[in-house]
């Protein structure tokens, strides 16, 4: 890849940003329209338990208005946009709580899993990839590549289910699910340890797939690097061990890895849903799925928007970082 001049690159980043704003707007429209196109009346669904009583027409209409379902679609959409722009994501009647509050309680847990998984797959995937690609077709390479091929053939939820089965059921050393024990300890240290213990399996399940991708990526790059003169030179000068792996391979892999990261965020957000479902982890994926099942329009809109803002801004920032790095290197 030839590096274009800086102004073109800046234009490219702005183009990306504009694209993301368009995507965001499309998602606003989509999340508004789709649930309303789905069959079913949210009010009847909210009151579909056999223990609720019959409402009179006037009572039902009053509740409907209160839920933001009164008036025409156009009215509802305008009200909705105005609210979103002023930062108000609405109120979920199903949970009887403001959507922003629901998101705020769920996001940290998802964040914990994602932030825990990123270093895990970067370190394991990239290091193993470098090790395998340093001297290709050695025993380590063959074993590791074989293992990664098998892992690549396990869908993300399968990995999660098997981790749960092995480490929580058959050999119960880790908790079955949830983010905390029933009664969290009082001392902050003990509490953090408990939270980490609960996050361990979900984090690993989340990381496995990206480990495979980053392994294959860095192995391929490392194989190519191994044939480059500067490395052959360095080896001849007796450079080996961590210095060789980090300073020589790692440095040169960084831009490629960063370029892949923005994509990786999108993939992780997809996978985190499965992981949260399997481990009944109280994060945003769970919240989303529940909102879809309950036809909780406001929550669904808020959750999709919140999530997409997160994904879009994260992967744009990573793109910017990758571009800056590419300019330096």
């Amino acid at each position, binding site marked *: 890849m030839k590096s274009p001049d800086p102004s073109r690159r800046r234009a490219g980043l702005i183009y990306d940003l504009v694209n993301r704003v368009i*995507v965001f707007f499309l998602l606003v429209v989509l999340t508004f329209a789709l649930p309303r196109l789905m069959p079913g009346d949210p009010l009847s669904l909210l009151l579909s338990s056999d223990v609720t009583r019959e409402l009179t027409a006037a009572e039902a209409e009053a509740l409907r208005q209160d839920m933001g379902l009164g008036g025409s679609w156009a009215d509802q959409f305008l009200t909705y946009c105005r609210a979103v722009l002023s930062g108000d994501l609405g109120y979920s009647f199903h949970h009887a709580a403001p959507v922003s509050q629901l998101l705020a309680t769920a996001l940290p847990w998802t964040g914990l899993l994602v932030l825990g998984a990123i270093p895990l797959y970067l370190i394991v995937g990239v290091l193993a990839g470098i090790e395998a690609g340093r001297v290709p077709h050695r025993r380590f390479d063959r074993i590791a590549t074989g293992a990664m091929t098998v892992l690549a053939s396990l869908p993300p939820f399968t990995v999660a289910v098997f981790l749960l089965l092995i480490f929580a059921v058959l050999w119960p050393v880790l908790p079955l699910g949830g983010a905390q024990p029933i009664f969290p300890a009082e001392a902050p240290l003990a509490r953090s340890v408990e939270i980490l213990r609960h996050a361990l399996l979900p984090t690993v399940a989340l990381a496995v797939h990206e480990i495979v991708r980053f392994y294959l990526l860095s192995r391929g790059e490392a194989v190519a690097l191994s044939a480059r003169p500067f490395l052959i030179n360095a080896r001849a000068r007796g450079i080996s061990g961590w210095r060789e792996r980090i300073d020589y391979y790692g440095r040169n892999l960084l831009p490629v890895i960063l370029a892949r990261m923005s994509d990786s965020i999108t993939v992780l957000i997809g996978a985190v849903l499965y992981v949260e479902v399997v481990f009944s982890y109280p994060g945003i994926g769970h919240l989303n799925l529940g909102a879809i099942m309950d036809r909780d329009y406001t929550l669904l809109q808020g959750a999709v928007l919140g999530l997409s803002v997160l994904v879009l801004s994260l992967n744009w920032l990573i793109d910017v970082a990758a571009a800056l790095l590419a300019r330096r290197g």
Partner: protein
Amino acid sequence: MTDQIRYGAAGFRRRNGLALGSAAAVFGVMAVGLVVPPYRTGRDVLQPPGPEHWLGTNDIGQDVLIGLMHAMPNTVFIAVSAALISLAAATTFACLAAIGGTLVATAVLRTVDILQVIPSILLLLLFAAWLQPGIAGIVLLLALTTWHEDVRVLRAIVLRELTRENVRYARHMGAGWSYCVTHHIVPAVWPTLVGLYVQNIRQAVMKAAGIAFLGLTDPRLTTWGSMMQDSLDHLHGDAWRWLLLPPALSLSLFLLIVLAVGQRLERQTMAGATARP
């Protein structure tokens, strides 16, 4: 990598042999669905594997082996056809973007860029919950959320082929675009198409199993993903051995086979490329 995709005549035949073999296998799998006995409920519930039910029964007495065989054509069909549709769409749009004017190209590429940043799982969830798709619905949904991934690669290759001397010569001799596409461009990009197709199949298998696993597909559609979901209630106790393992293994085995076929194809392409004088 795409620069290396040039091939020789021998490679083409070998590759075709493998492709034909795979196609035959796929049709064989589909045919299984026609001969398997019906997937009926019965009073023998949660039976471990035995002479009567080789892979045991589930919680309403359905035979797991029969379930696996019913699920196989469904799973394979979904993957094969979703990948085909998404590749066809990608090729069409790539050709449009390559041959059409700047305006068309900008429109296509812009759309692709936009689709690339939407987390596809969100779209899948929204649409799946809305439609609760059966087999055709899943195929379309998967195609809809994957086609954009291949457009850029294909466009680059088509552009490269367009500037080759054989195409220019044919154009010069008065051949129309459609002639050029079918006689020069398609044969040239064929290996790439096959490679992408195999990749797309893997993607589609994983995604289809995923939405079945979340319970968002039509529950009557037996797939390996939905069988795994049903088994989740039985992780405690013994029943997971015959309820979870068979569909999970089938799914992974299928993915491994697809991966192996893909790698074989790629290697043959590479071998063809180096064998070329």
